[in-house]
């Protein structure tokens, strides 16, 4: 896809604010690319990094960090450390395809599904995304409420703080500024690393777990639920929609795909480090035989306080708040992008408020409605968190098949269709996710089957 040649001198072409802002970003990329040397390569990486890191750290959200915390508390250091690293490898395989799709077509994921497969399949896909995103958004505000609850902040003030941060990121009406603000906030996801170090983990046990994948957990319903929750903590449908739309909004082209891949791998590496740190941080609860079945963020922080002190526990609670807020920003943005794409309304973070009213209205409405639900007294918040990750895993295979078909569509992808090895890997991911979902279904319908198979 080649740039349009310059127009005649006297011809007036109508362009939008969105085009002008995106052109500014592209000029900076072109200037950095034209130069040689390490510093210009580093600058190019700085300019092009964003959607991949945001999607991966965004997916280290409230329910994900709670799943990792529950994993550490329930199973300690063992099988789940390499397993979580493996799930992030699956996420890289999947998300790399969205970078190629976005860069090659300059269209969002929802838009491509509607255009290529028609509204019948498009609406199915949108319903999956809308329900999944809304449920996940609720859990993000649960995490914020629980995290700030550790410091004695009342729920309604916690929710208000989260909404103010979300709105502040939007106020620039510029994709670049929004991305940098959200990236800065997402960097706080790494707060779980010092918390893990405070627990003085046994590095011998950690390396043994990575090499041998042992000790193995017992084969039962609880293990399966945590397994599913940990998969759902790394690969979910909103990630596909978000990264492709953000790649398009950022203005990335086929020349930028290599940096898009680096961005995705970098994001996955950072997110893996934070996820493993969270498991290590709560592993002492397993060693002390503490039951953490109904723990929220605040309870985890309180339970860790005797081990890592008030400061460490506060960092843990703040990490949960960050996880919730960053994910609330990215997930509500993903909903707004998808809405704009299927209704053909303007959908860009480069739009001024007056021009992008439907886009910003959907974004705000999703966030406010989810936030309001969290304030309902007596809601079983912990259960909602667990179920949301399970629903994410179940909704993933249909979403992946759409992605698989689009990324192998020669008419829109040209030479950028997936190579055979990428197709084999993505088919493997679909198989693993479908099998995990079916096992979960069997565990509910016939719970005694695991005992019959030799489980606990």
């Amino acid at each position, binding site marked *: *896809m*080649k*740039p*349009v040649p*310059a*127009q005649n*001198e*006297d*011809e*007036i*072409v*109508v*362009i*939008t*604010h969105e*085009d*002008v802002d*995106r*052109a*500014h970003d*592209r*000029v900076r990329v*072109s200037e950095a690319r034209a130069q040689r040397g390490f510093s210009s390569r580093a600058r190019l990486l700085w300019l092009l990094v964003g959607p991949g890191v945001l999607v991966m750290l965004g997916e280290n959200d409230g329910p994900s960090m709670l799943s990792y915390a529950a994993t550490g508390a329930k199973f300690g250091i063992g099988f789940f450390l390499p397993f979580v690293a493996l799930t992030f490898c699956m996420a890289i395989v999947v998300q790399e395809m969205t970078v190629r799709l976005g860069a090659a*077509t*300059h*269209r969002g994921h929802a*838009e*491509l599904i*509607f*255009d*290529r*497969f*028609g509204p019948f*399949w498009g609406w199915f896909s949108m319903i*999956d995304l809308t329900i999944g995103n809304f449920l996940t958004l609720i859990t993000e505000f649960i995490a914020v409420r629980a995290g700030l609850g550790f410091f004695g902040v009342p729920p309604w003030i916690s929710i208000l703080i989260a909404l103010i941060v979300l709105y502040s990121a939007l106020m620039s009406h510029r994709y670049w500024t929004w991305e940098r603000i959200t990236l800065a906030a997402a960097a706080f996801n790494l707060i779980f690393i010092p918390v893990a170090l405070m627990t003085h983990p046994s590095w011998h046990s950690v390396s043994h777990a990575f090499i041998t994948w042992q000790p193995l957990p017992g084969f039962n319903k609880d293990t399966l639920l945590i397994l599913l929750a940990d998969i759902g903590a790394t690969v979910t449908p909103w990630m596909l929609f978000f990264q492709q739309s953000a790649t398009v909004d950022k*203005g990335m*082209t086929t020349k930028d795909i290599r940096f898009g891949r680096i961005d995705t791998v970098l994001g996955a590496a950072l997110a893996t480090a934070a996820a493993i740190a969270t498991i290590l941080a709560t592993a002492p609860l397993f060693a002390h035989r503490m039951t953490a079945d109904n723990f929220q963020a605040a309870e985890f922080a309180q339970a860790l306080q005797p081990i890592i002190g008030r400061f460490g526990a506060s960092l843990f609670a703040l990490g949960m708040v960050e996880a919730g807020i960053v994910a609330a920003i990215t997930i509500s943005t993903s909903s707004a992008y998808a809405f704009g794409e299927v209704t*053909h309304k*303007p959908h*860009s973070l480069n*739009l001024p408020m*007056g*021009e992008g009213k439907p886009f910003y209205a959907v974004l705000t409405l999703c966030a406010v409605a989810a936030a309001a639900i969290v304030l309902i007294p007596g809601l*079983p918040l912990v*259960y909602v968190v667990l*179920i949301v990750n*399970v*629903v994410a895993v*179940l909704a993933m*295979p*249909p979403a992946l*098949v759409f992605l698989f*078909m689009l990324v192998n*569509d020669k*008419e829109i992808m040209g030479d950028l269709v997936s190579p055979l090895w990428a197709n084999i890997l993505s088919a493997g991911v679909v198989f693993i996710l479908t099998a995990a*979902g079916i096992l*979960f*279904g069997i565990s*509910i*319908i016939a719970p005694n089957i695991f005992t019959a198979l030799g489980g606990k």
Partner: protein
Amino acid sequence: MMRKDEVHAAPADQSWVLNSLEHDQLARAKKHPIPRRHLKGPELLVLWALRIYLLFMMAVVAYQVWLAAH
């Protein structure tokens, strides 16, 4: 008539924007839908199978929620 999200740029500015962006990156270009693709039998089969799988599993999740609530 000019829409409020549109900017009338001077020719020099136009060429700067148009040279910086690929043709289909322009906001106006995105208003044109990409042509529909004809789905083949096996593709439809997979899509329907996964749709049924999802609906069935959602019923299982609803049953799990009902069990937990009682």
